[in-house]
Structure formats: C-alpha cells, structure tokens
C-alpha cells in the first residue's frame, strides 16, 4: 500500500497540520508520499522531504497552484490517485475544499475528519458536533480521507530524507481565479497549533475589549480564539472562531472568557487538556467541562489575571 498526503503549506514552509496527517497515514501503514502543489514551492517540498517517515515528495510547481484553487489541485490529485490505496489531507479549509472534489471525480465517498484509524478500511469520525463517534467501513477501492489534526500527534518535522520528485502540472481547469485576500498578520502562534489558547465570547462586549485577552495571550505565548457570537458581532475576524463549524483546537490549556459553552463551541475545544472558564453565570454550561472554573465578572478578573501573570 502507498499513501499520498496532500501538503498544507504556504510555498515557503510546511504547515504543521501536514505532520498530523502523516501520523494518521502511519497508522494506516504503507509507503508515505507527500504531494506539494504550489507556485515556487521548492522550500515547502524540501521541508516535506525532512519529515520523519516520508519516503517520497512529489512537487507540482506551477503558477496555477499558487492559491490552491480546488478545481486545479483536485485535477492533479485525480491523475495521481490510481497509484495509491489512500489519499489523505488534514481537515483544513484547503483540505475540505479540495479533497471532496477529487473524491467525486474518482467516484469515491470521502471519509471526513477522521479521529481514529481502526484498520486500512475502517475509521472513526465525530458526527453531530462531536456528540456521536461513528465507525465507518469504506468499500471504495481508493480511500480519500480528511484528518482531524487534534486527534493525531504530529510526526517529527525532521529525521527523514525523502527524494523530491518534480511532477508535471495537470493544467489549468480555467474555472476560477484568485483575486485577493485579507489575511490577519499576527506575531502570535496559529490557533490550531498553539500550546495555549485564550478565547473570548459575547461577554467581551466589543472588539476593543479583546485587547485584554491579547495581553493575557502575549504573557502566555498563546493564540487568541473566539466563539461564533463574538465573530458574528464583529469583535474579531472570522478565522478566530472555534467550534463545530470553525476551528478544532486541543491545546494544553484553553481559557474561555465570557463564553457560555454551547454545544457547537464545545465541539471545537472539549479535547483540550486543561480547560479554564471565566464566567459571571455560575450555571453556564462551560463549567461542566472546565477543570478550573472562576465565577466572576471578566472585567475585573481579566485585568487581575494580567497583574497576577506579571508578578
């Protein structure tokens, strides 16, 4: 068996989500190849070649892969897939965008966001906002799978010495064009790979008040997240959203401030190692999953927390 893992990268570097997908591939077992589709992506391919346990890196370097348009990357995958028993991707926005398109073209029923590998054809995946774990067995010849990164440890970033093989571009599908992006620049770690996450909810009342949480985050080297209510209200950008339909995180420490703990929010953070909740309502459901709960007004508790951390 050979397994192809689609790399999540920004051309210059490999994103850690890929390392978690490689671990899932190792659990399935077989030769592991990484596909880097990008534009000027030699550096990302070189990084992929160093990943432990990877035997080959395929690099498709073409301007048309610069922004990971699904129509083009899926076309590339469809050409490669017949050489593999499994094609995996991390369940990032890119992975979720691209892989189902390739699956349909291959007449394969994709298995989304697996959280465990039972065997080469049987996988566990959370459904109903994580309220049920469903074990499914695939009868498809090739398995296309997205991987929930938080459910698999990252494989070592170094230690491997795979060959990088350049492969031909599959050509432009000519269906869509990248126009532009608004990306948040931040010095903080990425939400999905941060060791500590500090999140705010509707209780924060404004975007300005999130500065308090940023102060806490900076003290702890943490990323800042949010509930859907905080994003919908415009306090913070959309990519801060943690939850069933946002980002899934499982840091060492998750601090929820002014978040009630709706099922959709819990779905994105309840696998965190240690959970702290600060909420003025002692009956807030978030306390049912919190290791340490503090019933307090956040507008007094958070400034105190900053002071305490400065000590």
């Amino acid at each position, binding site marked *: 068996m050979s397994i192809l893992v689609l790399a999540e990268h920004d051309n210059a570097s490999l994103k850690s989500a890929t390392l978690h997908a490689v671990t899932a591939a190792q659990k399935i077992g077989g030769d592991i190849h990484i596909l880097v589709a990008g534009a000027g992506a030699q550096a990302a391919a070189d990084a992929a070649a160093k990943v432990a346990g990877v035997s080959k890196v395929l690099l498709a370097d073409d301007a048309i892969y610069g922004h990971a348009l699904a129509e083009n990357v899926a076309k590339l995958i469809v050409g490669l897939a017949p050489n593999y028993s499994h094609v995996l991707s991390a369940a990032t926005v890119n992975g979720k*965008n691209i892989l*189902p398109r390739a699956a*349909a073209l291959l007449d394969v*029923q994709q298995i989304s966001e697996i959280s465990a590998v039972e065997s080469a054809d049987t996988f566990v995946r959370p*459904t109903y906002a994580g*309220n049920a774990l469903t074990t499914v067995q695939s*009868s498809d010849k090739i398995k296309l799978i997205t991987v929930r990164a938080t459910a698999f440890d990252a494989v070592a970033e170094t230690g491997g010495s795979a060959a990088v093989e350049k492969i031909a571009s599959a050509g432009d599908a000519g269906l869509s064009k990248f126009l532009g992006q608004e990306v948040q620049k931040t010095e903080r770690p990425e939400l999905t790979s941060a060791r500590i996450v500090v999140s705010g909810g509707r209780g924060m009342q404004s975007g300005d008040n999130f500065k308090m949480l940023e102060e806490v985050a900076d003290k702890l080297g943490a990323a800042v997240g949010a509930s859907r209510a905080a994003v919908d209200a415009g306090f913070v950008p959309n990519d801060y959203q943690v939850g069933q339909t946002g980002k899934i995180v499982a840091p060492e420490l998750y601090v929820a401030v002014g978040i009630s703990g709706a099922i959709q929010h819990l779905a994105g953070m309840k696998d965190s190692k240690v959970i702290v909740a600060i909420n003025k309502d002692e009956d807030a459901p978030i306390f*049912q999953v919190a290791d340490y709960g503090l019933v307090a007004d956040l507008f007094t508790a958070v400034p105190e927390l900053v002071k305490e951390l400065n000590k």
Partner: protein
Amino acid sequence: MKVLVAVKRVIDANVKVRVKADGTGVETQNVKMSMNPFCEIATEEAVRLKEAGKVTEIVAVSLGNAQCAETIRTALAMGADRGIHVQTDVELQPLAVAKLLKAVVDKEQPGLVILGKQAIDDDANQTGQMLSALLGWPQATFASKLVLNDNNTANVTREVDGGLETIEVKTPFVMTTDLRLNEPRYASLPNIMKAKKKPIDALTPEQLGVDPTPRLKTLKVTEPPKRSAGIKVKSVAELVDKLKNEAKVI
C-alpha cells in the same frame, strides 16, 4: 437566472443529541427536526438575489424520506418558488446526494446552485464540492459574500484559515454558504400560508437514474468519552496558582 438551493432536514441545532443504546445511530424519535442552518443561509441568499432582481426563479430541493417535504415548505415560506423532493428511505451519503443533485441540475439548468457548507448531522462538508466536480463547474465554498457580475462571472469572498479570500468564478457555478453570508429571515405567517399552495414535484432516484446505495457502512455509533467538571476556584490568584503548580500548564 434560475437558482437551485439544496435544503437538508436535520436534527435541530438546539437538541442535545443522544446515541442509541444499541449503538446503531442516534435517537430521532420525538426529536425536533429543522432545516440545516447552513441551508437556511443558502435559501436566504437566493431570496435576496431574487429581491434584488438578479434571479428569476428559486427551486428548493431536498432529498430523503417523506418528511423532507416539510423542509421544502420552509424554504417555500422563506421565498423559494417551487420545490423538488427526491424521495427515498435509503441512507444518503454525500456522493449519492451529489449525483442526485447533478441529475436534477441537468433537468433544471440553473445558473447557480447554493448549498450549505456543512450539514450539522453528518458534519461531512462534501456535497457542494462533489456536485460541482460532477458538473464540471467552478466551486465557491465557505462563502461570506457573493457579488454577481454582468459578464457571467461572480466574485465570492470565502472564509479561509487565515482570514478571507476572494475568487472570481464563471457561471454556472456551485456555492456553499458560511455563517457570515447573511442572517436568514423568519417566514411570516402570510408567507407560510402562501407556501402551502406552491408546487412540490416528487422524483425518485430510479427516475433520475442514480444508484444511491451507501459506500460507507456504519459499523457502530458510540458516545464520546465524557469530560467531568473540575473545581471552582475562588480567586484569580488561586487560579494562577493551580495552573502553575497543579496542572503545570503555565
């Protein structure tokens, strides 16, 4: 231009879902069902396009058992013009839904198909991408803004991992909705009454020439491990102390 919206009937988002004791699935008896929230957003977007004069007809499609007709009625009450119900009691997985929707699209020839990005029951996040693949159309997933241009293209802003990105797609295309695209309206009573008179066509997978047999066999459904509540701390100082000395995470 005609727009097709795919609306799925799911367990209501506010219901606490319970796994059946025999491990075959989740409890659906006496459980409130609703239109998938992302499909409400899809319907709302179509209705706004029609109100803006950019769209002439909205067709709401739902696939599944007899009760899916109620979900179509909800879309009709929000402003869709007519419905198509693909009736089947077979468990439908995203690839089968995409194939069935493709057959409907081939008949109806819409310029745009809008789906939710994700159904909150299977959490699959696949159907829109699969449908556009089968049609050979562009896909604009996770949309938070749609602008139809005059030259048979559209600009779609997408919610991506780092923030937002805008792409241009050619029509016809498939779009899937994210949460910030719009805020769906509640259907008014007069519109609910009017919806009762709007037509719903029934079709079967056989009539559409599609075999909907599931490819994934569900072996079991279990409850996730429960997390138990910890302790309440009395002060910020105690919290910091616990995090440092007990949990050792800071």
